[in-house]
């Protein structure tokens, strides 16, 4: 029997390394899938205040992936604590609450309010605009990442994860900043800013013009970022981006991830997460991997240090 338990720091040990990506999971999945079988449950990002979302169309299909500009519609933390949290307390899987805010201060206030029973951890969605820094997303720069995470760290003892954005030039530097600020784990990564145009109507396919690309198309990019971050920090990295199958998940585990998040794939196959769990177990059996820790160092890069400079001509 393979032991899939994974230690994500600060006492949070998941029974298996698979969980939903924020914004691709909600109460509805409980009608289809046994949520107790999932490593952890991660909510859609919430904000302290009430927020609407973006104009429709909010999604569109592109080759091997999707664009979304859902935005972060939120009914606020009060609503979350009163209505959503009790629903998820039915399940034994730890609940991670994804939270976002427009300023460092507001991030800290939000984190403080999530010190509630039934919340096992906080995922800071810092890929959102920082109104104090000209609207640039916190996670685009090490400095603003550090500020947001440090402010949250001061007010919570819960496991605190920083979810990074791929829309940055040096994700390893951002990862190190999040670690230095006290993050317990990193989630790598959010969606990649993209767009598509309908050449018949001559309009962008999204109401918001641009949106985030997710799904299989981004996997090689977010896998690379996971690898870079895992080498840059010593806290666990949770890989995310284009994972549809157990094989995809294993690539991330070999790249150094301690766990993975499945997003878009759940829209296409609601059982994607349970299939990935079963498939990882089968792979481990076949390869003689007895426990998650055995993935560390299993990747054979052929003695060579990768030549990053040459890589992307």
């Amino acid at each position, binding site marked *: 029997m393979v032991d899939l*338990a994974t230690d994500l720091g*600060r*006492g*949070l*040990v*998941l*029974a*298996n390394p698979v969980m939903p990506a924020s*914004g*691709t*999971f*909600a*109460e*509805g*999945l409980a*009608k*289809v*899938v*046994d949520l*107790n*079988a*999932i*490593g952890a449950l991660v909510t*859609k990002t919430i904000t302290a205040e009430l927020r*609407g*979302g973006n104009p*429709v*169309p*909010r*999604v569109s*299909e*592109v*080759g*091997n*992936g*999707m664009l*979304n500009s*859902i935005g972060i*519609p939120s009914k606020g933390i009060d609503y979350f604590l009163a209505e959503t949290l009790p629903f998820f307390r039915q399940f*034994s*899987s*730890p609940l991670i609450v994804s939270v976002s805010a427009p300023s460092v201060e507001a991030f800290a206030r939000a984190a403080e309010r999530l*010190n509630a*029973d039934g*919340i*096992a*951890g906080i995922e800071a969605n810092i890929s959102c605009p920082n109104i104090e820094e000209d609207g640039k997303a916190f996670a685009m720069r090490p400095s603003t990442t550090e500020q947001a995470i440090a402010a949250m760290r001061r007010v919570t*003892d*819960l*496991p605190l994860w920083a979810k990074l954005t791929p829309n940055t030039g040096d994700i390893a530097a951002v990862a190190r900043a999040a670690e230095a600020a006290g993050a317990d784990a990193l989630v790598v990564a959010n969606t990649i800013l993209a767009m598509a145009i309908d050449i018949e109507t001559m309009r962008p396919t999204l109401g918001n013009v641009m949106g985030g690309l997710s*799904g299989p198309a981004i996997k090689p990019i977010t896998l690379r970022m996971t690898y870079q971050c895992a080498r840059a920090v010593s806290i666990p990295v949770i890989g995310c981006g284009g994972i549809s199958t157990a094989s995809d998940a294993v690539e991330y585990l070999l790249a150094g991830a301690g766990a993975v998040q499945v997003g878009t794939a*759940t*829209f*296409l*196959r*609601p*059982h994607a997460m349970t299939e990935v769990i079963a498939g990882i177990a089968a792979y481990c059996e076949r390869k003689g991997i007895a426990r998650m820790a055995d993935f560390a160092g299993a990747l054979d890069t052929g003695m060579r240090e990768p030549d990053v400079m040459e890589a992307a001509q």
Partner: protein
Amino acid sequence: MRQIRISDDRAEPAAFAPTVVDADARVVANDWVNAEYKLLVLDAGPGAAAARAGQFFNIECPATGEDQPFFRRPMSTYAADPATGQVEFLYKVTGAGTRGLATLVSGGSVRILGPLGVGFSLPRGVRSIVVLGRGVGLATLAPLAELARARGVAVTAIVSARSPEHLLSVARFEAAGARVEIVLDSDGSSAPANVEALLRRLHAEGRADGFYTCGSNRLMVLMQRLAAELGVFGEVAMEQQMACGLGMCFCCVRNFNVGGETVAKRVCWDGPVFPLAEATSW
């Protein structure tokens, strides 16, 4: 530090019983019903066949050489028989997804998810209803006629179409005991003024204490106005582009007018059937 529960801790894992089916269904038939529409009949099992009128399924459409539909496509339940386990869909071959669906052959299989969403209601006081639809909207309304019959509620189906060749589901409504009124673009009878007169007449004759519509903004607006004026109960089945179909992605929102306030609701989760009074023009 807080106590953290992990999955293994649970005392007694109750057996999980899904209420929405995610399964491969066998294709019984997938034939053209006219030049544009196909009828897909699936052997989907009792769970799926428990779908109620107005509920829908999210269907994985096969990729072909030309088309690679990435999302599933939502399709209204055109028929569902718990006795046989069969579920039917009536669809118009339009774009990537439905072109893919059109390639299914009997004996093959297709991945379906459902039943999903909130279907039609037939409140106790409603004794005779009018269903008004056009095109693919009729696929959504047809099972309502059967539901009404089973509850002893009289049905008038106003079936709108471009021309006689484009008529859909007339036999289906007749078999369900509905009185069918046909209105056509080709002879002008589908003009709003004409449909309005027809609805007023039905109401005057006591044959319309419930209004149901789907598939045309113009007809929805008309019915909404009349329902408000005449004090008739009403529901509308809405469409919006969907990804998950399960209330998770928030892509399928529409604005509704709830007591004067504009509220965004997810069509897949709060609907697809909504109070007629709440609908806003699309």
